[in-house]
């Protein structure tokens, strides 16, 4: 797959064994910042970098300073119709390699009264890109920490810090049943 320079690829920069970096992509106001801070609060053995972006492609301004992105966490809110569009648009600008266990979609507000997006739409989106769905609220502290932990675990696997288990190995436990 020939990628133009706007696509985000996982292998354009050499990895650093001491570093992992996470990119959080989501529309304004879905809680990227709070979630990122919650992730950074968890003590880890390596140095973790988090970049947030309100949409893709990333600006070219400081592209050479950007570390290799190990894991992309898309985030959207069910209560905000814009946010799923941002995710949809951004997904097309990501290298396919990310969709083999190096990306996830965080969905907030599933049980909210003010749902604007249909759950089926979200599920269809996630299925078409093979994105694991992670549900939870950013607003409540307990759930935010839980979310942060889950994202961190996935990032660690993607960066190879979990006893060299690769995302693909994890994917291999998935059973695709044809019915």
């Amino acid at each position, binding site marked *: 797959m020939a990628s133009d320079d706007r696509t985000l690829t996982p292998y354009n920069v050499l990895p650093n064994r001491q570093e992992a970096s996470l990119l959080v992509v989501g529309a304004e106001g879905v809680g990227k910042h709070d979630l990122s801070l919650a992730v950074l609060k968890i003590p880890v053995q390596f140095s973790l970098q988090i970049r947030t972006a309100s949409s893709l492609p990333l600006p070219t301004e400081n592209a050479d300073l950007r570390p290799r992105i190990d894991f992309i966490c898309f985030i959207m809110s069910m209560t905000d119709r814009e946010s799923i569009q941002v995710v949809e648009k951004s997904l097309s600008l990501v290298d396919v390699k990310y969709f083999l266990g190096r990306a996830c979609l965080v969905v907030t507000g599933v049980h909210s009264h003010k749902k604007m997006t249909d759950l089926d739409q979200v599920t269809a989106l996630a299925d078409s890109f093979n994105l694991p769905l992670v549900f939870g609220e950013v607003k409540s502290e*307990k759930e935010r920490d839980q979310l942060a932990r*889950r994202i961190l675990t996935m990032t660690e696997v993607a960066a190879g810090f979990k006893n060299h288990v690769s995302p693909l190995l994890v994917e291999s*436990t998935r059973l695709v049943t044809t019915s």
Partner: protein
Amino acid sequence: MSSGKGVRKKQTLEAAVRYFEKCTGKVKVRGNLELQLSLETVKATSEESGLEPDQITTLLDAAASGYFAQTVGRQLIRSLVPSSRVPQEAVINAISWMSSNKPSISIQCLLLRWILVVYDYIDGYDKLHSLYGILFLFLDSQAMLPHVCHLMFLLTRKEDVKMFRVRKLLSLIQGRVGPQPCLLGLLTIYKLYYPNLVAFALPPSNKMFFGSYDRKWRCQVREMVEKSEARQALSASSSLGGNAAELGLSKSRQLAIQAPAKKRRRLEIPISHSASAETQLSESMEQVSLSVNTKKVPFVRVDTFMNLIDNVEKIEFPSQIAACLRDPILQHLMAYAADRVVTARFTFWLQHTLTDEFLNHSSVNVEENERLLRMLVDFTDFLQEGVPVVDSFISSYLHTWNGMDYGPFILRLISKCQMYPFSDLNDLILEPLRQLYFSSSVYFKCQCLLTLTELLRNYAAYECPRLKEWSAAVTAENNTTTILPTDPSLHSVFPERLNETVQPALVLQKLAAFVDRLAVLGLRIEGDNTLLLHSVVNFVELLSQWNQQHGVEKIILPSEHLLRRILFSDCSSAISRLCVAFCRYKESFVQSSSRQRESVSAFNDMLVDMCDALWRNKAFINPTQGSLKALSGELNPIVTSMGIPYPSSRFSIFQGQAFLPYAWSFLLQTQPEGKRVHPNQLKGVKDVYLEFLEQQNLAGVIRFINTFIMRKSVSGRNKHKSTADHLRRQLQRARTTAARVRNQLQQARATVARVRSSIIYRRHKQQEQDLQQREAAVNAHVNSQCEQEKDVEELRLQLNSAQVKARVLYRRLIHVSHL
């Protein structure tokens, strides 16, 4: 002060109610201070303590009469919060006002909503039910449709289902209104009572029939009633005690009074009451009922288990079926009767409640929701089978689960799930669980594995036999073509789920393989976490047991990868448990009638691996046997190139990392102090070492070795056995002596201490006494103390000698075993 305030409040409330009562004609709102003040008083009272039944009736008439502006009417209706019960009369009046068409449509809607909100608190339903036909006419109003449907859904009894009503509903569905969920809901209950009347195929849906309106309002009403009930219960218990029964209150009333406030929360697991008990419409029941035995006994009259047994064939189920979640007698009845209508009603209620509480409005009533889930878990435990509607709820809840809310209950319910074809099971439950598994902490991983193990156990113990019996029954029926058709309800409370396409053995096998994969990768990710390791061993133990315990024919082995992860881990107790599991496997294979050649050879390979690694010091180098044999050519250079001396003995019970601490402490205890110890020294004393391991709670290893290893030099060892036994006996004796001496020493020491303390005590006592006297006494004591101490010294010497003797004996024993 407060009572004075209360009295004043009461007066103003009475005045306000009187004001509304006397208004008979259009009332101006603008600038009408009296109206405003009265309205405010009513609102304040309803918020604070709720209204009395007669006040409700009066105010409802005022609100529905149309004398007041809509805003006033609306506020009045909203404030009709009962303090305890709602008189049926008020509800009847509301409906008759609606029929007079005086109030506007929106007020009529609001009245209906009010009835729905207070439905559980109405003090009778008989008259209301007789208005069923009138209510049916309101179906024509588009705005009122959902509320009317809901109300009728609650009211419908078997005799209400008439052909013309069904036709009307069908025409509405096919006509301008369309298949709205509320209409379908009503039709579904009709179909339940008379499937022959409703030929319309109802689309299966996971949606709720009736949207949940007025949650806040409902909450308010519930809280108010609870409050006053708590108050009543308090006064009842303090004054009357058991008088309630004598007064002839109905059972539901009693329950209402006795139930502590906690139990009756909004999530309302209703208490049971029976329609026929209240209506006494037994004649009409007889006309319509299709069953022969029409003398129904309403469930409310059944209060003991014996009573239940006597009437079991003719009990009328309570009209609120969900009561069986809290009533153990009803649970028995439900499990016994397995009535289609009953289970369907139960299913509807559950589906509605679960969807409403968990999928649409999560995290509102956490405590009550937890209580409901706990009841469900208990209920499924009681039935020993999963409830299909709960399964479908779990699968949709799991899809959006954050892995935290109601965690233990959700996992318990997963483990109670019914058996489905594996592809369905995978898509609905396993896949979401897998995603959570890999992104969550090690503790969640453990819970997850335990849950899946429980699910497997549940399948093996209950579901497989159930399905087997069922299919046996079906084939028997096909063969003999008996007149009596097989009744699925003999096999399951929820018979519609008995699915012939499920192949239990296959599901078990695939599920086990799935768990196996999760376990291997989980262990790898978490660096063989001990807790996780034990969860995994649990799974292996289940696999090894279920042939004998649950009669599963197919013997399923853990994968080689899983075996090696446990075998090469640093957790000795896990290895010991694994060993026990393998002993069980052997028993299973021996007893198993069917030849399972493949499994046997795989099992043997694994066994060789284990023996090589644990006992023979031949790990990785066996080129002909064991699960690694294909790889051994490749593996050996790698193993040797790692630069570790004797790699093949690195996992044995003598030198393996899991056992090294035991070896070390064993050598330390047995070898003379200062001698350098090395595990190689164990070679000759294997038996004693094994005994030592057994003392350290690692009996599994010994059992494994005794079962599978033919000890080489049995005859050679026998020669020395008697000497060894003799020495062992001597050692034992020496040890007991030492212990006895140690006891004596202890006693002597205690005496000395006692004497010392008494000296001090007396010193204090005799301070005023003569100096000489005191000196003499002290001297005497000191003398005696000296004597005692001498005794102690002697005993200590004795002990030392005994210990030395013991050590010498021990060394000799080892020497002998070397030979």
